């Protein structure tokens, strides 16, 4: 059963993404409210994929990506960014530090589900 870590400070978005992940067969969602919370959840759960927002309090999504990529234990976990930041340079920056995909809000659920499915099947 793949574990999907949803890192998002907005409860509305967390619930919406968790709802969408119900359509990923036999997956389990673990929720985190910011980067620090995500690192804690990462260490206590086997995580197969991370869905992370960029703008979050305490620790933002970009910092989280660089810390995850810096840890050999989590290096291979696919990370999909979901953010309101739609500028091309934001996308390039996120991908250059190790994010695998970049989606902008408002997120298209079908696109998100397909992307998650593709990464989990690899």
């Amino acid at each position, binding site marked *: 059963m793949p574990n999907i870590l949803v890192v998002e400070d907005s409860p509305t978005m967390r619930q*919406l993404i968790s709802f969408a992940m119900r359509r990923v067969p036999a997956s389990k969602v673990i929720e985190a409210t910011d980067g620090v919370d995500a690192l804690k959840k990462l260490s206590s759960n086997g995580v197969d994929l991370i869905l992370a927002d960029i703008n979050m309090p305490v620790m933002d999504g970009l910092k989280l990506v660089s810390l995850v990529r810096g840890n050999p234990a989590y290096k291979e976990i696919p990370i999909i960014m979901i953010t309101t930041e739609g500028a091309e340079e934001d996308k390039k920056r996120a991908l250059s530090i190790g994010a695998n995909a970049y989606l902008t809000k*408002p997120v298209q659920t*079908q696109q998100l589900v397909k992307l998650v499915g593709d990464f989990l099947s690899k």
Partner: protein
Amino acid sequence: MEEGSIIKKADEFLQVFKKGEEFTKDILRENERLRFKLAEVEEMLARGGEEARAGVYANRIKLLEDELKSLKERFMQVEEENKDFASKYLEVEEENNNLANLYVASYQLHSTLDFSEVLRIVLEIVINLIGAECFGLYLVDEKTNELEAVAAEGISASELPRVVIGEGLIGKVAKEGDSYFSENIEASSRKPDEPIVCIPLKIKEHVIGVIAIYSLLVQKRSFSHVDYELFNLLAGHAATAIFSSKLYTQSERKLSTIQGFLDLLKDKPRR
């Protein structure tokens, strides 16, 4: 006499022999003719069999061609049906997603009675689900009958001036209760009196506030069907959630004031 009789018998025998020869020749000719005839008949029969076989094959081919044609038609029909099902499936999936968005928005709006939390949820919905970058949430001030910005994103609420109901675009939306959508939603304006979208927050026909959107996120180029559904949801559910949480917060405040008085009264005699 004997010699004459012998010659006569020899002539007779010769005649018989000649007749026998002619008869044999006749038989041989007849035999030849019959053989020829037989060959002809055999050839005709052979030719007739091939034609019959060709006829059978032609019929089979025609039947198979008809079957192939009907199978092709059925295949096309099934393919069309498949396409139809696929597009219906996508439609249903999109509708499911839209309903999930609406459910989550509605669930979140009614998940708390804390006024400031309800305002935060409204902001979250407008940012994350609609894709607005800069907007303000105005509520009617019952005392002055003016609209006052109580929350905003992309601009400070304090920068948004009070609006007299009936005046300007926002005031007009508050007065008439009808949503406003600019024809050019990509044109971003941060002027407080020039929103691109205005949504009245209504409880039945009573307007309690307005959401005024000034610009959308760069990736948001147009509104979809679900956006209008969300606007409708916000118009009703956000209004109810804001109104009830405001009343609850006010009553909580009043209750704590009354409680404070009661505590004060209880304490007094002891002193």
